[in-house]
């Protein structure tokens, strides 16, 4: 199993958020998690990425034969996990290009691969930015600083395409995107799909799933997966909402 989440319970500040959650993802699969506000979707994304604010009460997560809880945030990223943030953080003064260059090389170092030099990285960045319709001038700016909501999401996907993760978690990447931006972003995601990687897409709406076809759709309510199935579940939710699952 590529990613195996077993009976995961998590709390933050004395509030239980995830309650015995189970989820299995194989290589080459696209999974979507849908659920109402506050059901724990973003918590799951952050627990997978390693955010340290949460208390793990119970459960186990295996990722590529590693016990995920043995790895810290950066080790998970270097092992190929990527979280596209719902609210990407603005970091004034940290320039995008050297930051991404440093990020890709930290991953290569862990994989015992040769570091990518400045020139090759610049070419790679330019090409990926062009695929996503990102202006080259934007790459001279500070991380997420002064970006519109749509630009931030597009920039998250740029980072993802540069880092080429094994497991990409997209936390409400569709929020704040207009229809044109949504198409560009989802095309970017689709380009990255291979039989060797996997995607976990968190969303409220079916719209995103019209562009990125999921193999499995899960409904999450009160910190647990209450129903799993194929894309038809997304259509069901679009039609009837989450009420009947609660």
């Amino acid at each position: 199993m590529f990613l195996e989440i077993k009976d995961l319970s998590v709390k933050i500040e004395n509030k239980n958020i995830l309650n015995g959650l189970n989820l299995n993802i194989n290589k080459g699969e696209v999974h979507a998690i849908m659920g109402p506000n506050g059901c724990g979707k973003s918590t799951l994304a952050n627990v997978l990425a390693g955010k340290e604010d949460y208390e793990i009460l119970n459960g186990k997560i295996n990722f590529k034969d590693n016990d995920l809880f043995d790895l810290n945030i950066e080790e998970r990223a270097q092992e190929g996990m990527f979280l596209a943030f719902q609210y990407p953080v603005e970091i004034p003064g940290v320039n995008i290009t050297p930051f991404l260059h440093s990020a890709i090389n930290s991953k290569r170092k862990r994989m015992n691969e040769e570091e990518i030099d400045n020139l090759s990285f610049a070419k790679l960045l330019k090409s990926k930015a062009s695929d996503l319709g990102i202006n080259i001038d934007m790459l001279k700016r500070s991380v997420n600083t002064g970006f519109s909501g749509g630009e931030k999401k597009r920039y998250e996907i740029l980072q993802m395409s540069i880092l080429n993760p094994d497991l990409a978690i997209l936390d409400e990447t569709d929020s704040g995107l207009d229809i044109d931006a949504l198409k560009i972003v989802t095309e970017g995601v689709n380009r990255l799909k291979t039989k060797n990687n996997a995607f976990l897409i968190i969303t409220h709406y079916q719209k995103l799933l019209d562009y990125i076809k999921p193999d499995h759709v899960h409904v999450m309510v009160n910190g647990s997966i209450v129903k799993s199935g194929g894309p038809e579940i997304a259509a069901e939710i679009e039609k009837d909402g989450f009420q009947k699952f609660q």
Partner: protein
Amino acid sequence: MNIQDNYQKNKKNIFFSDNKDIQIHREKLINIFETDRFDRKNNESLKNINLKKFIEFKYKYLVPEETSVINNNQDNSYSIVSVNGQCSSFKDDKIEITKILYEDYNDFSKNNTIEKNDHFVNLNSLFLNSGFKIVIKKNNNIKIKISNIVTDDNLTIFQKNNYICEEGSSLSLIEEYENKNNSTSNILNVINLENNSKLNHFLIQDNSSNHNLIITSHSSCKKDSTYTQKVYNFSEGYVRNFHYSELIEINSEADLQGIFFLKDNNTSNNKTFVKHLAEDCKSNQVYKGILNDRAKATYFSNTYVDQVAQKTEGYQLSKGILLSDNASYFSKPELKIYADDVKCSHGSTIGPIDENAIYYLRSRGMSKIAATKILISSFINEELSSINDDLMSETIQKKLVRYLSKVK
């Protein structure tokens, strides 16, 4: 030894001690020390310091054997080595350097911007044993680099310098303080900018932990003149930066900026004070601090706008990053506005490094320590990228790298 005895014992080695007027002034200063209650709560010069250490000091001064001024005619630049606060006399068609004169002392004692109870300034006036005066002649554009060297352990340098930028002149002044001995330098810079003159003043402070640096400046700006001061404090020893500016004529500007990098048990006290005394003047006071371990800092900023100073623009900003739970930074911005057509603001934000930003960077594969260092660098990126002298930029970067290497 008390101040009175200390002064009497050493007055032969103190500047102007045979001058009657100065003697009267100094008696008043001694009286302040003997009667002051040393109110730590309300006296900003007393925050976070071991006053006893600075008042009950053992006076020691050595007249330097050699000082130098090198004139590089090719790019209008001058290199000065000031030793124990003294500098050789020098004169050409662009600048004139002399010892400070009785008049320079007297002029400053009448100024009322610096508080009467700033004990370090009073000590400077009382035990004055060194200093120089530099005049930049009319319409010249020059660059001066001053290396301030203290030669021996246990020296007490009380230095007063006077800089005069004549009409239409422009000066880029870089002062370096990099002393490794167990001494104390108490320096007062008095700066006068005549009409349409400009002074860019950089102070690079990087003393060892046993060296104390108390530096005070008072700049006075006439019509269309601009004073810009940038302080980079990497010292491991105590540093006090108190800088005052008066905008006395129309359309003058003062920009007082500072960055300090503290660690271990080090302390730094900082203050900027701009008085707007004429119309259409601008000021900016920005200090940023990074504090690790058990380091402590204070920053007091103050903008005073006189009732005649309409169309004033005065901004203050203080920012601090605390890298340790045991570090502390006290910041107090103040505005006193007596004119009605002004744009003024002040702000202060102090806190630990942004955990969300750390998380974001780590989620891309950066280690926690690398993420912390990159965020510290970004915190002062604006100040560092505005340095347009390549050599100085490289010097500051190296010192920053050294500081960051100790951040765990």
